[in-house]
């Protein structure tokens, strides 16, 4: 299937979900005023991917900032990943946070407690 690649801006993250390369990542800043509109294409892409996923999907989330409206949209992304996991496919989420960014670590732990997919918290040391 065709990859979904969205270049990042100062308020929206870079999104790259590419089946052929085995790369699934969201990185940068996610603070748009209208997050639903921004995440819609990714969630639609995942709805198709869910039908025929790879044996193993490793998703890297490397966000510097995200606002509360993005937090709901990111949860929607994770719920789709949870469905893939529930259908007996391997899914892993790597949640990156900067050293000293306790809020980003806690945000990852929130998702880990809500979503039944293995989460790995990875500290980025500068």
């Amino acid at each position, binding site marked *: 299937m065709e990859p979904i690649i969205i270049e990042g801006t100062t308020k929206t993250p870079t999104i790259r979900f590419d089946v052929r390369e085995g790369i699934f990542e969201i990185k940068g800043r996610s603070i748009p005023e209208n997050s639903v509109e921004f995440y819609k294409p990714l969630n639609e892409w995942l709805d198709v991917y869910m039908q025929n996923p790879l044996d193993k999907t490793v998703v890297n989330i490397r966000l510097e900032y995200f606002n*509360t409206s993005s937090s709901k949209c990111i949860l929607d992304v994770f719920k789709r990943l949870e469905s893939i996991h529930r259908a007996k496919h391997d899914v892993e989420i790597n949640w990156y946070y900067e050293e000293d960014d306790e809020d980003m670590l806690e945000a990852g732990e929130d998702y880990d407690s809500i979503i039944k997919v293995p989460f790995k918290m990875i500290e980025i040391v500068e």
Partner: protein
Amino acid sequence: MSFDLENLITDFKSRDAIFYFKGNIDSDVINNALDSVELKLIDVKENTRLRKKVYNVLVESLQNLYHHADIVPPEFDASNPDKYGIILMEKLSDGYKITTCNFISNKKVSGLKEKLDRINGSTSDEIKELYKEILNHHEITEKGLGGLGLVDIARKTGNMLDFKFARYNDTYSAFYLSATVNNEKSE
């Protein structure tokens, strides 16, 4: 405690602000405010923890204004009356204070006050649970509003939210909200 919106604005002007804006809150204003404050925080070499907390609280405060400010009463003198708001950021001895002010419909005052009182009456663990509860169970609106903004501000600052309402006329009130982010506050 009541206050007068005009006096409040005058007070704001007289203070030593890191960032101050009064007027129509649109996407460009939000971008400029975020860029300007981020550069200042980097310039004074604030630590990562404080810098990120302040930036996050500023994002939520600005977007609260953008999404929730009601239209300005017709008799109030404002050049761009669509989403009129005031934003002020001040440096404190051990952190930063972010204050916003906007008009809201009187009908919304009691609901908003109830929500703020609930947040202020909660422990940090309760706020964390409330955040997760809203995140996981509440429906998101078309605009992407999930009702998480105020809870997130309280959670990230670890402080009570300072707020006031002042009745402007029979239809509108002014809503003042202030959040303080301290350096190295233990959660």
